Each structure stands twice: as structure tokens, then as C-alpha cells.
């Protein structure tokens, strides 16, 4: 789960990480009031989950409360387009009003998982404020990477290695060691998958502060962080994906094509999308229906997929292991009874209880185009979509 910058900074404060003074505003009047409280000179920052807000015109300076109100009124409600939002952009609902910082240097700091070693790493660079993936690709030697052993946790010497590597000395060294440790505490205790500060700034008056903040949580750990649920902003998510989630279809991702897919297993779901593409079609979604124990979930999946007006055909590709083909077949039959599926359904069914599933479909006489394997299923679906 992603959260907004202002929420991430509130979390930072809970972990004793100093952040610039500021508050979030939903209207120009609120923005003005906050700017007055902050002394007039502020930064107005659009709060959307996507990165690249500055380049898209979502971050602006204001040198008086009136200017803050004016800038806020421009940004709130705009459809902000960045390299991460897609061409349709994301509507801005709120802005963060923050005091302006006298910046001397911009650094980069992050904590994330290194899959290859199965450990968190602290990652830092003196090249802050830039696209870190570009820095990593072009000048990998400018990135400091230090793994943290989960058995011992963060150690101050690791913080010093980074701080010296970034050229921080004296009071700044002490601040950095404390700040990195505090962010590591946050990373572990809230089950984060990413804590990123870009830029981390050194101010002309000798302070070290996160100017931006990005925190992403591991969805698998939701069950032990009930307090984080309220940070979720459904406005940032695709409405169909939100609806799917509420109906228990957890792994639905809307795409731009016209062939709806219901598949069991994430790998097979991706392979099905790949096959559709190879057959000359475009998938309308990714959907891993998972281990199906009741046909209701199949009905819900069909509801979600056919709610997308672009969908011209639904392709079932089921290879039952823990999931049972007879349950899937029953779901298709139930769905056709409950509502009118006005697009063709192509089904490739194999694996656990396939004979029982076939028998159910035959007895119910439902209209399903049958495919014997993955390749044929993709071809038939592409034909039916034309």
C-alpha cells in the first residue's frame, strides 16, 4: 500500500525524524491560513501517490499567504500528469503547505529489500533530488549500498559509513546516524517495503531534513497493522480495482485491452496475458482468482470484468491444483443465471476435478467456447473479440 507524502512525514515524526514544519490543506483558504502560521514563505505540494510531481507542475513556491492561496487553488483539483500517472493523470485532492528550506545540499536515502540477498539494504547517494534509477544506471559507483543483518538490526557504524560516504561531518554526522536508525525502526516496525527520502537535504543552517518522503507498506503484513488501514486513499486507486478488492478479488489489475481474463495463479495469469498478446490481442486485466473454494468468487470476478465496458470476451484459463475446476464451472453457470453476460466466454479448463467440471458445464448447457490448451484458448479469445 502506498501513502501520501504528508502521511509519511507524520509517521516520520512518530519515529523522531525531524521534518519541515507544514500542514495539509484541501482548500485555498486553508492553504492561506497555514502559510500565515508558517510565516508566509512556503512550498505548495500536490499530494498524489505518483512521483515526478515537480516536473508535472504539482510543486510550487509561494512567497506570501495570498500567493499560497492562489497557487493552492491552481493545484487543488488539477489533473496532475507525471511519468508515473499515465496520460490521464491523477486528480489532486489536497496540497501539503510547508515552510521553505534554505537548501545547501540534496542527498538521497532509502531502505528497501534486496531480493538477491534476502535482507534490507540502506541505500544512499550524494546525488539527491534526481531519478535514482538513472543514477544507478549511469553512475552506479555514486550509490552506497549497505545490507542490514536482520539478526542484529541497524548498527551506528553502518550509519557512519553512509554519512562519511555522503561527506557529512560533525553535528551532521550525528544527526545522520540517528536519522538513518530512526527510519530503519520505522521500516521494520511498520513492515514497510520501501522508505525513501529524495531529497534528504542539508540546510544552510546545518540541519538534516527529509524534504520529500515516500513510504510503501507490505500488504502481506496488513493483519498486524490495523492502524495503517486508515491511511489508504481509495481516490488514488482504480475504481474497478477498489470494487474488486471489496468483493474479495484481491489480485485484479485493470489494463487497457478488451479480453477479460480469469486465471488461477499469478504466473499462469501473466502467461495468459502474454499468450493473448502473441495471438494479436490485448488483455483487459490481470486477475489471479487464487484458490477458489466457493463459486461466489467466480461470479464476482465475472461481475468485475464485465463491468469494464471495453471487455469484448472473457477468457477463463484454469489449471486446477489447490483450486478446483468444478467450483469454477459452477461459478460460470451461476453467473449466467444471475446476470446477463453479454460477451462470449472462452474456457480452457484442466487439472483438479476437471471431469466433474466438464460434467457440470455439459449438464447446464451454458454457452461456453471450449479450448483444449493455452495456445488455442488465446487464439479463440482473440477471434471472439474481433
Amino acid at each position: 500500500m502506498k501513502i501520501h507524502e504528508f502521511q509519511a512525514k507524520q509517521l516520520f515524526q512518530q519515529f523522531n525524524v525531524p521534518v519541515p514544519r507544514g500542514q495539509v490543506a484541501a482548500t485555498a483558504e486553508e492553504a492561506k491560513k497555514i502559510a500565515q502560521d508558517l510565516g508566509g514563505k512556503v512550498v505548495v505540494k500536490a499530494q498524489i501517490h505518483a512521483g515526478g510531481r515537480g516536473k508535472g507542475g504539482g510543486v510550487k513556491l509561494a512567497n506570501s499567504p495570498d500567493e499560497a492561496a492562489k497557487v493552492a487553488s491552481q493545484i487543488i483539483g488539477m489533473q496532475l500528469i507525471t511519468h508515473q500517472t499515465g496520460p490521464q493523470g491523477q486528480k489532486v485532492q489536497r496540497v501539503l503547505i510547508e515552510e521553505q528550506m534554505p537548501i545547501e545540499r540534496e542527498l538521497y536515502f532509502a531502505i528497501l529489500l534486496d531480493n538477491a540477498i534476502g535482507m534490507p539494504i540502506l541505500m544512499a547517494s550524494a546525488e539527491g533530488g534526481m531519478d535514482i534509477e538513472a543514477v544507478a544506471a549511469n553512475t552506479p559507483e555514486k550509490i552506497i549500498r549497505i545490507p542490514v543483518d536482520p539478526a542484529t538490526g541497524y548498527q551506528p557504524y553502518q550509519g557512519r559509513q553512509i554519512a562519511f560516504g555522503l561527506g557529512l561531518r560533525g553535528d551532521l554526522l550525528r544527526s545522520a546516524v540517528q536519522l538513518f536508525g530512526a527510519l530503519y525502526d520505522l521500516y521494520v516496525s511498520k513492515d514497510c517495503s520501501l522508505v525513501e527520502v529524495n531529497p534528504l537535504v542539508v540546510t544552510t543552517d546545518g540541519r538534516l531534513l527529509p524534504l520529500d518522503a515516500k513510504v510503501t507498506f507490505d500488504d502481506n503484513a496488513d493483519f498486524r497493522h490495523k492502524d495503517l488501514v486508515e491511511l489508504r486513499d481509495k481516490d488514488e486507486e482504480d475504481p474497478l480495482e477498489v470494487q474488486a478488492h471489496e468483493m474479495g478479488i484481491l489480485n485484479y489489475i485493470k489494463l487497457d485491452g478488451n479480453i477479460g481474463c480469469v486465471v488461477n495463479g499469478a504466473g499462469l495469469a501473466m502467461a495468459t496475458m502474454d499468450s493473448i498478446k502473441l495471438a494479436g490481442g490485448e488483455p483487459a486485466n490481470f486477475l489471479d482468482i487464487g484458490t477458489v473454494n466457493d463459486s461466489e468468487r467466480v461470479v464476482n470476478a465475472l461481475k468485475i470484468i464485465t463491468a469494464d465496458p471495453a471487455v469484448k470476451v472473457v477468457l477463463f484459463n484454469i489449471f486446477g491444483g489447490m483450486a478446483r475446476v468444478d467450483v469454477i464451472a459452477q461459478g460460470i453457470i451461476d453467473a449466467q443465471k444471475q446476470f446477463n453476460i453479454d460477451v462470449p466466454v472462452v474456457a480452457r479448463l484442466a487439472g483438479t476435478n476437471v471431469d466433474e467440471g466438464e460434467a457440470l458445464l455439459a449438464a447446464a448447457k451454458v454457452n461456453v467456447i471450449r479450448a483444449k490448451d493455452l495456445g488455442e484458448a488465446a487464439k479463440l479469445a482473440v477471434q471472439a473479440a474481433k
Partner: protein
Amino acid sequence: MSILVGKQTRLLVQGMTGREGSAQTERCIQYGTTVVAGVTPGRGGEIVLERPVFDTVREAVKATQANVSLIFVPPAGAADAILEAAEAGIPVVVCITEGIPTLDMVRVKRALRGSGVTLIGPNCPGVITPGEARVGIMPGQVFLPGRVGVISRSGTLVYEAVDQLTALGIGQSTCVGVGGDPVIGTTQTQALAMFNDDPGTDAVVLIGEIGGTAEQEAAEYIRSSMKKPVVVFIAGSTAPAGRRMGHAGAVIAGNQGTAAAKKDALAKAGAVICGSPAEIGATMAKVLKR
């Protein structure tokens, strides 16, 4: 011959009394796997599926000499279950559970380092040596005993690949689902090395997917050490960047995570790449004829 599991396997199931645990254990027994015990804390002394249930893994091992554990414990308790199996001296632990918090697996992986325990998974379909032992959740009827090893991050793609192999009369030595999570016990590279050393395996199907750099590491192993042909399919060529495609590990971040980058690395290392998931069997048939 085979790897990890076989005729010698004496299987213990942690979470055998749960709904999926019992249904799947029953299928393991029907397949011919030697299932010796179940463990469910608080249910010790019961008999389920004609097997004794114990409160702890230690007791179960002492009483039954179990040498492989299969775990169906829910996400919140799965890391604990893996560590309990390891502490009790079980050398091969297979964890099916999907949805374990990543940091739990980080700690488990660290704790298992140097222990000699081989963990398969989590978030995987398990391991099967056709005709000998099914330790997992796969549909047993699609597998055929033979000499091709299968390694996959995805469960259902194991079934897909095996179905194609079996239809062409190509049997399998062992099939290993290494799991779809970012932190897994046994990597594709480690599984490749096991097949490389297995006299019962002539060739390997490796099924990867987007996200991470495990396929690049496998490519490096193939280039430097693999003595047997490897046929590869990488799922997710059409996946959009930045989205988690079901598997927690399947998110493209940076250029290395893309299907194209992985295929490129593996092709350069000498693996045979399948462009389509429908051609895995046919590609292996061609490779075996050479």
C-alpha cells in the same frame, strides 16, 4: 533418482487438521506419498487421516522419524512453523502458505543460514517426484515419471509446463515450485544446481517471471556450471511496470526486472528461450532430440 523428495520421504504435515491441510494431505496419501504424521498445537493425540497428530514437531519427529515437513499454516504463524521444523532437525521443509509478511521471511532466511535445512517456498505449489512422492498441492494426474527437471516461481505454470511435457511423453524427474515471494528459501539457481548434480535428470525447464534478478543469477550459473540443457519461459512480457502482478515478487522495478532483460541474460548464457508459454513442451522435445 530425483531431488529433495522421493521414495525415502517420510512426510509430516504442519497444519494437517485445517481445511486445505487435510484435503491436500489426503491427496498426498492417495498419490502414494509416505505421510507419517501431522502437527497441530493443541490437537496432539488425535488421529486424522489414520495418522497420529502431535502438538509439536519435535515430538512428531521423535515418534515417526519424519524427514520432510509440508506447511499449510496461515500467514501469521507460518514463519514460526518453518523455524519449529528447522529446530526439530527436519532437513527439507516445504511451505505452501501464501501471504507471509516479507520481513518474517527475511528473519527466517537469516536464521536458516548455515543450518543445513533446505526450505522450499513459501507461496509455492511444493515439490513432486512423479510416481514417488507428492509434497504439495499439485494435480498429481498430469505428472509422468521421467528425466526432465522442472523449476518454477509460479505454481500453475508448473502444471502448464508439465501437462505439455507429459502430452509429448516426456516424463519428469522432480518438479520444484520455488515460490512467488521476494524472499524464498531455495532460489532458482540452487534448484538448478541440484538438478545439475542429479544423475536422474537430463534437462531442465526453468520458468521465471518479471521482478527481481533471480533469473540473471540463474543465467550466471548456467553460463559457468550447468552441464545439462535448460529450456526457459519467462512470464510477464506484457505486464505493466510498477504494478505487483499477484505474486509479491512480481513487480518490475528498474530495467533488470523486465521479461526482456531476463530472457536476454538467459539466452546469452546458453539457455533455450520459449517465446510462448504454449510451446514449453515442444521446445523441450526439440532440445532432447539434439
